[in-house]
């Protein structure tokens, strides 16, 4: 397969994609091209600084959206389960215990092996 044939095949495949996918792809391509162009021709320009700020703002919004979903989908159900089973991971209830000191648990791996891990 030569290059022309390859490009026309990719073009045909893209033409069959749904409109919204094509719009998203076109948008992503434009962003990529703009970024490459700025880096090549005006890495210290004010326009590039503004462009970066704008893209970071979009990133912040998306991060918030994604983290909201993660929070609701992962933290929410576990929390609900804990509440239903009346388990408090933070041991907040005061109670009348004569002491609130807890034994320091030595790592079962032993001190030297444990030091190689972040846990």
């Amino acid at each position, binding site marked *: 397969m030569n290059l022309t044939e390859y490009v026309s095949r990719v073009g045909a495949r893209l033409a069959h994609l749904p409109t919204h996918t094509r719009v998203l792809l076109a948008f992503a391509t434009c962003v990529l091209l703009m970024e490459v162009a700025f880096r090549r021709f005006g890495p210290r320009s004010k326009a590039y600084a503004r462009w970066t700020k704008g893209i970071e703002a979009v990133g912040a919004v998306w991060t918030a959206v994604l983290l909201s979903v993660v929070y609701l989908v992962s933290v929410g159900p576990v929390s609900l389960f804990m509440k239903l089973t009346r388990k408090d991971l933070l041991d907040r209830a005061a109670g009348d215990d004569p002491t609130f000191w*807890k034994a320091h648990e030595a790592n079962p791996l032993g001190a*030297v092996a444990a030091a190689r891990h972040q846990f």
Partner: protein
Amino acid sequence: MNVLGISCFYHDSAAALLRDGVVVAACQEERLSRKKHDQDFPARAVKYVLKQGGIGPGDLDAVGFYDKPLLKFERMLSTYIATFPRSFGSFRKAMPVWIKEKLWVPSIIRKELRPYKGPILFAEHHMSHAASCFLVSPFEEAAILTVDGVGEWATASFGVGKGSDITLFKEIRFPHSLGLLYSAFTYYLGFKVNSAEYKVMGLAPYGKPVHFDRIMKEIVHLNEDGSFKLNMKYFSYDYGLTMTNGAFSDFFGGPPRKPETWMTEREFDIAASIQKVCEEIVLRMARYIHEQTRLTRLCMAGGVALNCVANGRVIRETRFKELFVQPAAGDAGGSVGVAHYVYNTLGKQPRGPAWTHAYLGPEYGDAEIREYLDGAGATYRVLSDGDIVRETARLIADGNVIGWFQGRMEFGPRALGGRSILADPRDPKMRDILNMKIKFREGFRPFAPSVLADKAPEWFEIDCDSPYMLLVAQVREGKRCIPSVTHVDNSARLQTVTREASPLYHDLIAEFERLTGVPVIINTSFNVRGEPIVCTPHDAYLCFMRTNMDHLVLGHHLLDKKQQPPLREDVDWRTQFELD
């Protein structure tokens, strides 16, 4: 064997280099980056300590990190689960930082320390604190108490150190934390958390602990053994972006004080109350630890160990006869702790000599200082050792305020005569002059005295050394002629100075005594409010020129403010530093 210790990604990042069990250099990143409480990876500090040791990253045998990031992450996730859905704001703010940085500590260390290929070892946060105090202390065997905000899960722990071994017995776990309790009140009183806790301590003597009983009844459930739980109904630090909530405000009859606003008796009384609570908890903990260990020597570290009023009571009111507090008791000291833990405890190596001073930072020779001063167009005189001492003592006795820059910079939050502003403690106006015209800080804040160690018991109610300015003692009744370092309750946070630890500084105070009969001078950190303590001659000269200091002593160079050319500045320096 070269071991590098690193602490970072929370606050006060630092690096320390240990060679064959002896600290070659230790430095907080903030001093080099000029960003107060800098929490970023301490790239500059690492570069400095390696340079001081005359090695490159490839020559290191081990690198230690001061806590266990994954355990900390587990604690955070558990907290989010336990406080769902109120923890959403905190989750959204914290997660990007964890995902981007804090979960990749080994990768970051390897990238920053190329071509280092050796092991990266992790110690528990409170083990790092414990090692940072015990393994550099003069004690062969001692009880250890560490108290801070929070590490992984532990917020306080105690154990015993013997030789090179450390065993931690028990701990108190998050969210029940004395450090965070104190920080919550710091926040409520309008000060910056993880930064201005010492201001609450300084504010306390102005008030009466009228809320003590209420706090102990409703907010803190304290047992006789010093263990406690907090009533989390009053706090939001476990789920939110603030420390206290509406219930806390209702309890104290109003919202948190807005920063930089006027303070009233109400704030004084709240500060006095939380300070008394803090002291009560630390005292009970210390008594319990003595009961458990039967040892008479105690080592302390963790941010709460910087509460020198509580430390003073521990030595006076418990059965511990000797106390060693790590000069960099906060997280910065964790870098020293983990390096020692890796070398001594894990490596089973005997301990090196005990610390006698905290001068572990950068040093600048006369040639470097002169080169800088000439470049800046400064006017100066070069004096001999003897003349610099005599001239400076005379200037202080004449009421001048002196910037004092000598030898290696201190490691830890206190200026101990390496990077200090010095003045005459006999002048009752000196405190206001220093607060308002030199440091540009709140008027209520006291100043600390440096006193010749052998004269300390004569002037203060103390019978032990306090070389790191971490003990508070009363000024003796017949010696209250030093009003500028005597707090409203007649206490002082003193530094005892020996010739062995700091010859030039000792001689300066001795000369001041010869001139005035007083072996005490005011010693405050060489900086303005919000600025890290100066590190280089450039930092010192800028600070000198920007404030109303009268003279600057840089090594053997004496500068008179009146003779200096005006400083050409292109920035408004007061906006450069965020107020603490």
